[in-house]
């Protein structure tokens, strides 16, 4: 097991370090506990827009300077926003870790928010939306299936936001967002790589501890009523050449004891050429061209999803029934020992290959602390996967894959 050091600064900022000196590099994930789920109607897309604003300069770092400095060292820096969190990640030669920490601290405490920067990034985000949603086959359908799957705005709306909300975001809104969410107690800083523990903890203290803790906020309480009736919807997509199918079931959130059962079911159905759905739908019966999906876990309401692209003459409704039959098979037939062992080995290999990438490990570590409050969560993952039994799978499938609890979206071509 890797050596992990964790500390919490007096202002609540959590720091987690995992040394690995196999190459003289470090990766850093600065994970903010703010994602699109905190947005309200009318302010969709703010978390993501704000991620862009974080690259527009701060008191001691000019606009563009962060990237220039990181690139000049051969490093890499970027950000990403999801429903749950905003992640700023960076890789650097290990001897320059102090620079990375200093730049992260500077933009947390003194971001340069200006009308000009906002306008510029608004245009960039609108272009991003045009490219990823409006110009992409099935892009609008991906937005639609989420809107249909949740009753609450928090998870129902797209992370990138609605065009009109992005267009109307004002500088005051953005400043208020920064004050509310970009607070030390709302951050997990994880560093993996060739890191000197004492020196790095000293630097983290020097750079971050002076920031005052923000005002306490009530915890987000998000839940969904249990779906009692299947709803079937149909949309037309002028960009798509082939029909497609989305099917969503409600699923358990992070922290639920059945989380690991879902991980096993996902691999069993979707991962690898011998997985049940790929084998049946794509290889043997050719009823789908592409099948993806699996467990979309959140800290709030979560989903188990299918997305399939069908042949031109494919029938989405028929494929939805095949999918439901495969889910019911999980209830009717206990999964054999060999198949369970196969899933464990697949997950073990994935985990080991995943450990090659320092950035991935840093993000995984910060997520473990933010979502599970457990820096060792990732290390215990395989042990918990190995405890999942065929009976667990039957129980969870019987409880959660109710044929009357589905949201189905059929996409037809124009």
């Amino acid at each position, binding site marked *: 097991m890797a050596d992990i050091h964790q500390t919490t600064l007096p202002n609540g900022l959590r720091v987690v370090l995992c040394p690995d000196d*196999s190459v003289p590099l470090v990766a850093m994930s600065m994970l903010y506990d703010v994602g699109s789920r905190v947005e309200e109607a009318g302010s969709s897309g703010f978390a993501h827009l704000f991620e862009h604003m974080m690259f527009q300069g701060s008191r001691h770092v000019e606009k563009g300077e962060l990237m220039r400095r990181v*690139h000049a060292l*051969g490093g890499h820096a970027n950000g990403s926003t999801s429903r749950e969190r905003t992640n700023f990640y960076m890789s650097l030669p290990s001897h320059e870790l*102090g620079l990375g920490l200093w730049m992260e601290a500077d933009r947390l405490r003194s971001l340069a928010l200006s009308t000009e920067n906002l306008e*510029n990034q608004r245009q960039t985000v609108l272009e991003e939306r045009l490219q990823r949603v409006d110009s992409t086959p099935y892009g609008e359908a991906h937005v639609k299936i989420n809107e249909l799957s949740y009753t609450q705005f928090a998870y129902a709306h797209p992370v990138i936001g609605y065009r009109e909300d992005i267009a109307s975001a004002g500088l005051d809104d953005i400043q208020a967002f920064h004050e509310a969410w970009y607070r030390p107690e709302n951050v997990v800083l994880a560093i993996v790589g060739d890191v000197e523990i004492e020196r790095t903890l000293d630097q983290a203290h*020097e*750079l971050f501890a002076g920031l005052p803790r923000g005002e306490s906020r009530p915890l987000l309480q998000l839940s969904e009523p249990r779906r009692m009736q299947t709803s079937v919807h149909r949309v037309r997509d002028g960009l798509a050449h*082939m029909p497609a199918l989305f099917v969503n079931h409600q699923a358990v959130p992070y922290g639920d004891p059945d989380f690991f059962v879902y991980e096993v079911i996902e691999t069993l159905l979707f991962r690898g050429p*011998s997985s049940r759905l790929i084998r049946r739908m794509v290889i043997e019966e050719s009823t789908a061209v592409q099948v993806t999906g699996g467990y979309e876990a959140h800290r709030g309401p979560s989903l188990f999803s299918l997305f399939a692209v069908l042949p031109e003459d494919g029938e989405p409704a028929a494929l939805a029934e095949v999918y439901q039959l495969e889910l019911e098979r999980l209830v009717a037939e206990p999964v054999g020992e060999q198949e369970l062992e196969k899933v464990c080995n697949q997950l073990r290999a994935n985990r080991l290959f995943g450990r090659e990438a320092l950035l991935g490990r840093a993000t995984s570590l910060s997520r473990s602390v933010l979502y599970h409050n457990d820096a060792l969560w990732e290390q215990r993952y395989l042990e918990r996967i190995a405890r999942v039994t065929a009976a667990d799978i039957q129980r969870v499938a019987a409880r959660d894959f109710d044929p009357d609890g589905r949201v189905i979206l059929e996409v037809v071509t124009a």
Partner: protein
Amino acid sequence: MMTFPSSPPDASRPKPWVFPSTVVRTLSNGVQVAVVRMPALPIVTVRWCFLSGRLHEVPDKTGTGFLLQRLLRHGTADFNSSDLARHLDRRGIRLGTQVSVDSAVVSVSALREYLGEAIHIANDVAFKPLLPESALAVERIRALQLHQQATSQVEAMANLWMSHSLYGDHPYGRPVTTRAGLKNASIDDLRALHAQICDPSRSMLIVVGDVEPDEVVDVLARRVSGLKAAPSCAAWSPPPAPTCQPQVLLVERPGAEQVAMGVGALTMPRSHPDFLALRTVNHILGGGASSRLFTELRERQGLTYGVYSQLDCGLWGGDLTASMSVAPDKVGRAIGALSAQMERMGTGDVAPAELDAATDYLVGSFPQRASGLAGVSSLSMAAWLHQLPVSVWRDYQATLQAITMDDVEAAARRWLSPDRLCWVAAGSPEVLDKYLPEFQTLGGPVQRVEMASLVD
């Protein structure tokens, strides 16, 4: 309360890093094996690399290579298709097959305990594939469906048209699949292409990971004994060097929400002495988020979400291209901004600070590129494929640091002068019409084509 420092903490002393050493052995049957020991994690990657690829496709059967790439996973002498899939998944083994224009690869990644299995599978997939006719029928249908899906992606199609515009009928200009080619390819075509590509005399086995060279040789002796290095198929000649004339290609896609735009020029093979200087030029132009294109077109003007350039060099030629997607109302400004940046670079206008920053990035990022099994095995393959010196990766950072202002200015002027540029814009016919006067200023004849015609 502590005062926040106005400058970053002092850096500590940089630590040395060297590319892991490669041991090359030649087996008694003539097959070359390169082993790179990287023991940090108990995993290995095995690659059979071949110095041949889709080049050998019959022109009206474009897509044979793609079908071969897929059929290679449909079983070997030891396993039928389903058994192979189960066998791999049960051990967490990943199998990859790739048939490019000038090379092909069978790669297997596995936990260290399955090293013997990984070598055995890579060998059987490469040299003893079943290539069953029944699987071709299934894969053909699937390939046609994927082909259909791909033709709806405007950006991807704009890239294909860019290659076609630069290379014409040269193999590098061909799409991976055409509808007609996929329909025409027979199992005999696939088997002939396989024989042409998977020729042991034009191959190398690369093993990277938690292994010792002697152990690999031992496994090979036990599992790959029947392999012969003698040529097994007819000799062939490489294609002539590609040539192109400047032109502006307007690709019509009714209903497109954005316009995908690109500009490019033919460059050189990877082994050309100008390669690293032009790679530096590419980084300055559009190699990342601090490049000229990104900072000017995205960060300053907000014209696009992403704009990058890339240098792609193969065995017989190469190209440098830049591309982006923009909203219809920004097309005019985007043409002006992209054209101004290309024109500036074409004159060799590079500041010393830009050269320093690009060199620092390329030098500093190399340990990252070479820190994983996939990266090291891909670099090892490139060295073999392009016949680069054995020490190429050990010397790589020093070679980059030796590049001068004269080198980059000369490379930029030589390869990116305005009279070498081809332009492509894919979008709705109405938008292309609206900006026709702007497109006409770009140099070279303007031609209009229908988007799918290249891949029908």
